[in-house]
């Protein structure tokens, strides 16, 4: 179902994750480097949200902030609430409980986030046993049954293997199993399939989506791949230069983008079914600290006017989508032509 990210409460009750006016800046340099600014997004239980952007758009930092995993030199503004509680106010023990039981994080590179000296079994069992939720035996049984659900045939043998004995796709499935061990309510998946072959990506995404749907989990999928995000998410949030430029229902946003950046991203993706001159966006993706007073995309936007360069547009509702663009109505037809030509 479509939820407009940016509106915190709707008919389906309170949000599971509610990020408001999030700003992140690094304070170890003068002037401070802004990485993320004015990010507002909310997710409901069981909702799957695709957070899409290029390098430096602040998508991973937003997830890190939501898990309170930012480095000590980062300063956070705004608020992040999980299930009505402010994440920033968590005590040490509350934070540990939050990270271990409420949310799970899947990284891009599973090899970098597993201990090469420990077996798959030790890796899976350790975290739940540490929270004293299960005995070692219960945890082992659960791990084996989870691995089997992931389509890993000889789960018992895999438990005794080390990460280097598993392929990337297999290890990523172990990662998914590890996040599910503690039965979280929300999964952060940070580019979970970027390092994998397309056929393996398809398989790993299928397994992940099955688990999400079966358990009615929320998922925040961080990716640079708009096609992938659109295919598996209910809602899309597009980030550029540390801020959200557009958000809305995945199908509508994909078919009918309202922000020039979203439209340009779609048009610059090479198609497998036809050959055409790609519409490239001039210049390179900018970081939040590089953009001036105006719209973050103004420097690369073919539709930018003087107003765009001096005045940062507010997020507003245009035909069901949330768009941060002064000219959203005026250029709607141009965007359609550019995309479907």
């Amino acid at each position, binding site marked *: 179902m479509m939820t407009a990210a940016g509106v915190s409460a709707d008919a389906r009750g309170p949000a599971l994750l509610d990020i408001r006016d999030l700003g992140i800046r690094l304070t170890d340099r003068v002037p401070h480097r802004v990485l993320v600014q004015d990010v507002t997004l909310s997710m409901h239980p069981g909702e799957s949200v695709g957070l899409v952007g*290029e*390098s430096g758009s602040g998508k991973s930092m937003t997830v890190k902030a939501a898990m309170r995993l930012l480095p000590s030199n980062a300063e956070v503004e705004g608020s992040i609430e999980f299930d009505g509680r402010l994440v920033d106010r968590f005590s040490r023990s509350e934070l540990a409980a939050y990270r271990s039981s409420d949310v799970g994080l899947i990284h891009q590179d599973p090899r970098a986030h597993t201990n090469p000296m420990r077996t798959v079994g030790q890796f899976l069992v350790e975290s739940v046993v540490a929270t004293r939720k299960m005995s070692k035996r219960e945890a082992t049984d659960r791990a084996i049954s989870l691995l089997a659900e992931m*389509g890993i045939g000889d789960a018992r043998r895999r438990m005794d293997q080390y990460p280097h004995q598993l392929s*990337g796709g297999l290890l990523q499935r172990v990662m998914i199993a590890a996040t599910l061990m503690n039965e979280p309510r929300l999964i952060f998946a940070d580019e979970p399939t970027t390092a994998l*072959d*397309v*056929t*393996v*990506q*398809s*398989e*790993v*995404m*299928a*397994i*992940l*989506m099955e688990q999400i749907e079966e358990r009615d989990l929320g998922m925040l999928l961080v990716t*640079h*791949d*708009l*096609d*992938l995000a*659109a*295919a*598996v998410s209910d809602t899309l949030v597009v980030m550029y230069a540390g801020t959200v430029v557009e958000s809305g229902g995945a199908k509508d946003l*994909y*078919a009918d983008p309202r922000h020039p950046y979203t439209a*340009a*991203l779609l048009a*610059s*993706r*090479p*198609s*497998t*079914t*036809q*050959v*055409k*001159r*790609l*519409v*490239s*966006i001039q210049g*390179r*993706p900018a970081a939040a600290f590089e953009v001036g007073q105006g719209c973050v995309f103004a420097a690369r936007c073919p539709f930018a006017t003087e107003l765009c360069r001096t005045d940062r547009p507010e997020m507003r509702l245009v035909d069901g989508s949330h768009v941060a663009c002064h000219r959203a109505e005026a250029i709607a037809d141009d965007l359609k032509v550019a995309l479907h030509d």
Partner: protein
Amino acid sequence: MTDPAGGQATRVVTTAPQSSPNAGSAILTVEHLTKVFGRSGREHKAVDDLSFHLDEGESLAIVGESGSGKTTTARIVAGLETATSGRVVMDGLDVTRGPRTGRRKDVARIVQMVFQDPFGSLDPRQKIGKGLEELLTIHFGLSGSGLSDRVSELLDQVGLDDRHAAYLPRTLSGGQRQRVAIARALALEPKILILDEAVSALDVSVQAQVLNLLVDIRQNTGISYLFVSHDLGVVRQVTDNCLVLNCGKLVESGPTAQVLDAPAEAYTRALIDAVPKPGWKPRRRVV
């Protein structure tokens, strides 16, 4: 001299059949190429009896998953790896044994390679302009205004300008570095450019710029591309023909449009179906 292959010591007449009749003659012929890694007992065949050829001005894709042998094939053609058996003939020069000293410069003038990682393929302490000058001096003996004109020309060809000549790689973005890597390859005026996942590490918006650039360069220079990629969308945009590899073996080959629109093999179909697109549903592999 009645034997047409009389000059075989250095020049070899290639007899491979032409797949596309309207293209020029073969600039690269690969016959029964096999590469085995590892010691006896634990051998791994990375490339298994692969034959193909690349015509002058043609753009040929090698696609496949990780471990399909596409990069190994490209590295053998580039002379960075030696074949276990088989033959590689390039512009009449047999380079199967790899470019030996004395011929290195000749082979470098025929084939150049652009790598995936624009952060690892440039000397971090050499300014962009100096690096190009060095190449041009060694290979063409250029100096003075001839040298600086050629540097400007090369930078211009890849969409950079003279300002960038004074930069160190670290001050450039990923897309700009990849442009520099392409300029360095073009500096030697090679006949074949091997692009090994050359746009895979770039953001989509920047990737589109570099792909358009590659299309333009081929149009303007008539250079041949050997384009190694796992990305079928990218392959569709910049290649005429393609080879599909699986576990080192050739699965399917033909015009790119035909292979992607109407694949003859189930393996190729599975690769195409796995690409996310509107209405796509991730699927578990049918075993």
